[in-house]
């Protein structure tokens, strides 16, 4: 796949490359294990599409450290969004994949970018329909600020201060053929 890399476009800036993403995920995996004193009762659920792939990567990293593979799945927030019926475009539905009962479990919810917090809210509501977890912790690769709801990430790969108009994109090998985090200046 042909791509422009290394900031060829002045509008686009690479904030994290493949290595930086891997290092950040490794640190987050350690933090998750440290804070929860192990992996018992952990369930990792990613918000599709890229949050799910990050969840799978975290699962692998935790397995490398602890030798245990916590159950991993996907929680699609689409049906719980607060902008359905307001926006003219409709987001495509993704798959829900809750591998085991979440009652009494500690859920690590994984997303690629934390922005307004609205997706996180929707995903938490979706989870509550599946049971009563002991707690939900939020892990994100990028926190770009501008929250519109009282939501805070427990684990952050990288804080990237942005202006509201800027774009932050996470590309992953699994979906985009290359792993990187880029910011794009607002196009008027």
């Amino acid at each position, binding site marked *: 796949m042909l791509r422009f890399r290394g900031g060829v476009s002045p509008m686009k800036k690479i904030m994290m490359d493949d290595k930086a993403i891997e290092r950040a995920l490794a640190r987050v995996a350690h933090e998750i294990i440290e804070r929860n004193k192990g992996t018992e009762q952990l369930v990792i659920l990613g918000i599709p599409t890229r949050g799910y792939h990050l969840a799978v990567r975290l699962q692998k990293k935790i397995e490398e450290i602890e030798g245990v593979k916590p159950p991993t799945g996907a929680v699609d927030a689409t049906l719980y969004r607060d902008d359905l019926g307001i926006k003219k*475009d409709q987001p495509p*539905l993704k*798959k829900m994949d809750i591998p085991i009962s979440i009652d009494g479990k500690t859920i690590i919810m994984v997303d690629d970018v934390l922005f307004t917090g609205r997706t996180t809210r929707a995903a938490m509501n*979706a989870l509550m329909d599946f049971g009563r977890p002991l707690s939900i912790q939020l892990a994100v690769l990028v926190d770009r600020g501008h929250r519109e709801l009282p939501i805070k990430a427990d684990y952050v790969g990288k804080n990237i201060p942005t202006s509201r108009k800027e774009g932050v994109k996470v590309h992953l090998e699994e979906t985009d053929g290359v792993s990187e985090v880029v910011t794009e200046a607002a196009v008027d």
Partner: protein
Amino acid sequence: MRLKRKDLLGIEELSAEEITLILTTAESFREVSEREIKKVPTLRGRTVINLFYEPSTRTRTSFEIAAKRMSADAVNISVSASSVVKGETLKDTARNLEAMRPDCIVIRHASAGTPHMLAGYVGCSVINAGDGAHEHPSQALLDMLTVKEKKGRIEGLKVAIIGDITHSRVARSNIYGFTRLGASVTVAGPPTMLPPGIEALGCKATTNMEAALKDTDVVMMLRIQLERQKESFFPTIREYSRLYGLNEEKLRKAKPDAVILHPGPINRGVEISSEVADGPYSLILDQVTNGVAVRMAVFYLLLGAAREE
């Protein structure tokens, strides 16, 4: 991504992309019905009216359950208990219902074209739940979903539709749907139940059931609709069953892994034998399960976004 239309009136008007979008969306909705809490808040505050001018258990219940699992409010109007028996015209009924500000009217009617007419009268979405011998789009969508679930694809499959083709809206919608997605469809039935010129819809036609069954992947049996037959189209039920009823012996003509569909309600021992209807390749109950998912998907795609003004 959304359906760029207000109404779902038939499969004929849908493109392959639109059908695929509905089926993919329905695949995601299947999971909701498997939860302990079978409800998502997506269509909170929306109102769906089920307006059924013909008897129906399966379809009406399926639409009602689908609406409720999406958190929409579903209201059922059965015509025998409504103002229609007092002589109200369809147009007046429509105007009055519309004045109550529903978001969607699901209509079944004995006359072909009624949903189209209704869609012109009202500003809300209209879904055709069966109009005369014309179309039954949600049934065809659930049939396609069921086949896609079991076979993994629709393109390239051989589909045989057998029975009363003349009176069957299910057959028409399925011919449009399966051929549009790249399957080849053969219809078979007695000459009195095989409308001349049906090939114009893109299918093959034969009066020989065995020929239609040969090497087929999907066998779709139609119900003999005794209530629609004021005159008789075949001498005796026993003769019909012998020539066009599906039993294990006839099923051997089809591919060994052929699946069997029936829109229900089935007449056991008439168009389908009990051992086939209850056999391992029968998908009759999967169809009913998928019916809810498909209707949830249709509600989501028609009502889930802001109206294009």
